[in-house]
């Protein structure tokens, strides 16, 4: 077990050949449990803690590769520094929306009215996909780009536009049918 990590303090000297430290981490700054370097970082609880710290914004990013892992320190650690751990580690994926994005919130949810519009006006067999697509766009694009409030407005607008699209498709089919039948079947 790495003594530097166990003591909660890493320096270039204590990390030795196992790691290169870009910034000193003081005790209590990081809540990562100890990790056995010799296992190649397969400790699941340690990786879960890294991912949780990334999610909470304690760490801005954790990028892993075949040669090691770079953990960039977030605002809680003062930012700007990084820890580079040399050695094979499992992949860490940062799925968290970037910090500093306007209106980012763990609890942001699509507006009720948008969901209701879909429930009321979209054909039953298409509701599932539309709910899913709107939710994916909401969480992945609109909230990180515009913030929660604007994203909610966009959600409602897109829900409305989508029901118009579904209705127009049905209306166009009806017009097409009428034109062909009313013009003596020549259309």
């Amino acid at each position, binding site marked *: 077990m790495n003594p530097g990590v166990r003591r909660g303090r890493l320096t270039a000297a204590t990390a030795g050949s196992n790691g290169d430290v870009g910034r000193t981490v003081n005790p209590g700054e990081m809540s990562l449990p100890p990790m056995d370097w010799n296992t190649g970082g397969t400790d699941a609880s340690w990786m879960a803690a890294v991912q949780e710290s990334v999610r909470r914004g304690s760490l801005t990013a954790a990028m892993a590769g075949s040669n090691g892992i770079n953990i960039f320190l977030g605002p809680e650690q003062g930012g700007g520094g990084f820890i580079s751990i040399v050695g094979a580690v499992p992949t860490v994926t940062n799925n968290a929306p970037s910090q500093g994005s306007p209106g980012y919130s763990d609890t942001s949810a699509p507006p009720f009215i948008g969901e209701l519009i879909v429930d009321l006006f979209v054909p039953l067999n*298409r509701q*599932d*996909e*539309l*709910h*899913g*697509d*709107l*939710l*994916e*766009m909401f*969480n*992945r694009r609109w909230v990180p780009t515009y913030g929660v409030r604007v994203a909610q407005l966009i959600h409602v607008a*897109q829900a409305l*536009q*989508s*029901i*118009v*699209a*579904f209705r*127009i*498709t049905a209306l*166009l*089919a009806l017009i097409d049918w009428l034109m062909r039948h009313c013009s003596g079947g020549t259309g």
Partner: protein
Amino acid sequence: MTLGVVLGRHGLGEFERHVLLAIGHQGGQAYAVSIIDEIHRRTGKRVSLGAVYATVDRLAKKGFVSSELGEPTPERGGKRKRFYRIEARGERALSQTRELDQQMWAPAIVGALI
């Protein structure tokens, strides 16, 4: 018979062509959000979900694409994706449209335009 007559009212508009190509590029993994992403990546244009739904429905009615529902996924709140796949008829329509365009952009005309 000319290509225009062959295509008839089953021809492709510009946006229909973009959507059809975006579906074709993703090999059976295309769904509404990924179609939007693909079009944005290749053209820089942002399109709405509604526009994509209306277009793929139209393409499906023409027999150019088929669709099937995927499995529910947690990141989409347990909702399913509808995956679209380009059909042989759609591929034919694309190549015929391209040929038609090339005929319209024949060297003599292009030379006069540029």
